[in-house]
């Protein structure tokens, strides 16, 4: 029975191997070419191969040598931050910076442990106003403020 002695390294090995396999899978229909005139697929496939090889070596070592364990993955902070950014990204062209900015900050504050609603509302309004003043008014960037595009 093989025991994983270094979970952290083993995880890294999996990431490398998956990434390399992805590189091959999605780059596989690219032309390979020859050394004299490398096609667009030559370099990506060689790189993907190297990444897999490195992953395999790291993985093998993780079975032999002891190493650190993996810290627990916490879904909430990362998840909420991403949801907040995506809300912003997909609403700004629909309803403008003002409202999507406020919504984003309201969601984002709950990624932390000590969110307070009243404070979050004030923060959201203040920061959004600030970014409108800086980007749209002072710098003349063409961002939709009140309406979409």
């Amino acid at each position, binding site marked *: 029975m093989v025991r994983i002695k270094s979970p952290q390294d083993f995880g890294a090995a999996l990431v490398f191997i998956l990434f390399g396999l992805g590189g091959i899978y999605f780059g596989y229909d690219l032309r390979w070419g020859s050394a004299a005139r490398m096609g667009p697929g030559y370099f990506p496939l060689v790189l993907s191969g190297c990444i897999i090889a490195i992953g395999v070596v790291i993985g093998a070592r993780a079975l032999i040598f002891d190493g650190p364990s993996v810290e627990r993955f916490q879904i909430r902070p990362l998840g909420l931050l991403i949801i907040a950014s995506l809300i912003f990204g997909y609403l700004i062209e629909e309803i403008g910076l003002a409202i999507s900015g406020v919504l984003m900050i309201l969601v984002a504050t709950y990624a932390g442990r000590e969110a307070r609603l009243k404070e979050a509302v004030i923060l959201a309004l203040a920061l959004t106003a600030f970014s409108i003043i800086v980007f749209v008014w002072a*710098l003349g960037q*063409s961002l939709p403020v009140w309406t979409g595009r």
Partner: protein
Amino acid sequence: MKFSFLKRTLGAALLGASALIGGQGSAQAQAYPNQDIRFVCAFPPGSGADVIVRYMANAVQKISGHTIVVENKPGAAGLIATEYVVRAKPDGYTIFVHAGSAVSNIPALYAKPPFDARKALEVAATINRQPFMILVDAKSPYKTLAELTDAMKKKGDKASYATAATTGKVMGEIYKARTGITAVEVEYKTAPDSINDMLSGRLDYASHDPVFALAQEREGRMRILGVSTAERLAANPDMKTMKEQGVDMDLTGWWAAMVPIGTDKAAKAKITEWFQKAVAMPETKEFLNKFGGDQLQESPEEADKRLLKDIDLWIEYAKIAKIVPQ
């Protein structure tokens, strides 16, 4: 006023205020133009293309008396900006100041373009036309195109040449096809990237844009042997065309002010008028000549025909240059 951003800010604030007072509906009723006009540039601020767009913005602002804002939408060799303009409201407030030839090569370069270039834009006014150029190192012995061609025939596939843009690729391939030389193409991301390899003698010649080529000739580093337009241009009347030196080709890059198809007729007529006035100015001639091009004054109808004709031409060129649509 030195701080244009301040002016723009104030202008925007006033406009905002007037829009609030007047309500949303009245904006449509007033005569065009009643708000800032946007010139879309497909390259980043400070690029060669941006310089042309900003020059035109300045000129049109003076003629029309309206605020023109230049908006840069760089990316994907102009495709992102083109798509942006195609999707814009056809109200005359979004004007694409860009190479018409770059719009017409979209069907030749992309297998699944995000829009149909034949039915996406109409030309309000043309701005200039410019050639691509064949260059050699100033230290090289080739003084004419014929000398270069002879030498390249002898060198066979040991000869190499540089390209950096689609038009340059096409020019290089037509030159090879017409003369039977078999030089190997070496692609660069930008024309300046090729200078070092060129000056060290690794490359025999290059096919580049006029802005780069003229700057190199001015600095005494390279020599221009032929230009890709069928006729000589007023900008550089001494430069021989490829055609008159026995290599038949007519590759013309041209710039235009384009608007989304179906743009309001009255608005488009105004835009045409402004641009025609701006292009006719002597300063504009001088400015455009510096970039190796001539003013191009065609009616919008002629220009639309040019755009459609170019689309077919480019599909043919792409075949000659063995470019596979992606």
